[in-house]
């Protein structure tokens, strides 16, 4: 059998890293995975989850729009609460858990991971491709969900309050912050759940522990608070939310530290995932 196709891979022979090959491989993995993430039967739950805050805000705009527009100051605090309590801690958390744990564990359950393992792809490239596909899906859905919720929130504010808040006040800045926080949440939670899906056969127990850890974050001493995603995300919130009477107060981490901190944590987690996947064997039995 001839090896005419090998011509494409001559870059292997050189000392340089084959970046263009890796890019092509990542693009191919992305195409396959994004299609699966959006069109698979498992995506239905994610759509419902992403739609929930939008529907809630739409219902609020339809029924309580007048009252909201009269008390716009209070409305801003209510939205901040909804964003943190529902969108961030529930929708993005559970959504990312679902999407990212599915990336590898789902394939083990479907008994199709070996197709990737039988391709000449560095396992690190595979992790990167899969992570990016999860990121693309989660950002599209959950940042979209935040945008949708914001849209109906503004709609409820009414036209005059709306333009005042958006263009003369802090509205635009707040909106950008909320969307950025959602994106960062996807980046952080995504990495954590990717690695959980790689390490555990039943990743639900660690996922519940992570949920508990994030949930009781307000009770933790400042040092421990920093070992969580929600601490950094809360620090970026444009409207600070009180954590209740039992909370141990910690100084919020400034944005210039929390954003790179989150990105560094994510990179570290991806490196761990890459090391783990190099050792991974295909054993489908018992799943």
């Amino acid at each position, binding site marked *: 059998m001839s090896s005419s196709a090998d011509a494409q891979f001559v870059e292997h022979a050189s000392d340089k890293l084959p970046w263009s090959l890796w890019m092509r491989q990542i693009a191919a993995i992305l195409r396959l995975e994004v299609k699966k993430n959006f069109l698979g039967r*498992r995506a239905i*739950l994610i759509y419902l*989850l992403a739609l*929930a805050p939008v529907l*809630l805000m739409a*219902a*609020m705009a339809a*029924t*309580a729009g007048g009252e909201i527009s009269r008390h716009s100051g209070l409305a801003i605090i*209510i939205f901040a*609460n*909804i964003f943190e*309590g*529902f969108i961030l*801690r*529930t929708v993005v958390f*559970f959504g990312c*858990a*679902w999407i990212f*744990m599915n990336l590898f*564990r*789902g394939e083990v*359950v479907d008994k199709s991971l070996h197709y990737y393992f039988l391709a000449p792809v560095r396992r690190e490239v595979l992790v990167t491709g899969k992570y990016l596909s999860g990121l693309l899906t989660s950002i599209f859905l959950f940042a979209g969900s935040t945008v949708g919720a914001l849209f109906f929130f503004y709609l409820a504010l009414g036209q005059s309050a709306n333009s005042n808040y958006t263009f003369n006040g802090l509205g635009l800045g707040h909106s950008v912050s909320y969307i950025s926080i959602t994106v960062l949440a996807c980046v952080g939670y995504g990495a954590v759940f990717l690695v959980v899906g790689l390490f555990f056969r*039943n*990743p*639900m*127990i660690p*996922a*519940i522990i992570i*949920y508990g850890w994030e949930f009781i974050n307000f009770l933790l001493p400042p040092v421990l608070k920093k070992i969580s995603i929600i601490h950094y995300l809360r620090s970026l919130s444009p409207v600070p939310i009180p954590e209740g009477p039992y909370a141990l107060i910690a100084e919020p981490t400034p944005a210039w530290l929390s954003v790179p901190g989150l990105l560094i944590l994510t990179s570290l987690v991806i490196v761990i995932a890459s090391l783990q996947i190099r050792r991974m064997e295909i054993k489908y039995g018992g*799943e």
Partner: protein
Amino acid sequence: MAVYEHTYKPYAGKLTPEWSRFLIIPRHAYKDIFRSKLFTGFFALCFVGPLIFAIMIYLHHNINALLMLELRVRDLVPINAEFFQIFISIQGGLGFLLTVIIGPTLISRDLANNGLPLYLCRPFSRAEYVIGKMSVLMILISSITWVPGLLLFLFQSYLEGAGWFGNNLRIAVAIFLLSWVWIIILALLSVTISAWVKWRMAASAALFGLFMITNAMGIIINELFRTWIGSIISLSILMQTISDGLFGLRDSFDMDLNEYMIAPVWSAWMAFGLICALCLFLLTRKVRAYEVVR
């Protein structure tokens, strides 16, 4: 014409009684479940609560022990309806975690491995199958909720005297009923999810997410629309409402629920009935000896 010798004889011996046949499922399930040391450890931990509550009851009635610990009776939690309600809530919560761990595998494994026809091609009905699967959870959760709950109640009655028993019979009824509400809702939800979601992890996530997501949604709906509807959407507030109704208490957990957020007890019972009906409907649709593969 061929003449065949009929050597085959069908089984003509005695069978187990029909009413108890479903117990074969929990019997085998426990063998599997208790093979996990982690689960066995967790299950043992579920009995620490009853022990602590028993010690608290004991201390109430033992002056010498109180003196030794330099405590006064008024320093202790009073033994009343709230005491037992807290006990059942803690044990119910542990029951929930127990269900998240073992519930999702109950039917999903049979569906994933095409095991359902093996059960249903025998003199074993669909109802018996579902009851058998549910009984795995029912027996386990019973052993950590109403069984120790009633024992604690009897212990307190014994120490306090017959009058206390008669005056507080409602507490015993509430312990029993509330435990069964927990058991039924947990068993039905987990068996239904298990029947619809083949993948164990997804089923666990769905069960866990169902409680957490409906809780967050319920609170937000209450806040946004100044209504109590959210209180019956949130499964945890729903359970609290039923619990308050049974124990004759109001917002006992001090969840800072505004007046408008407190759902009437009848609505909570209705929501509970609706959830059970929905689960049963979904179960009858899915638990069949065949499956349409698309």
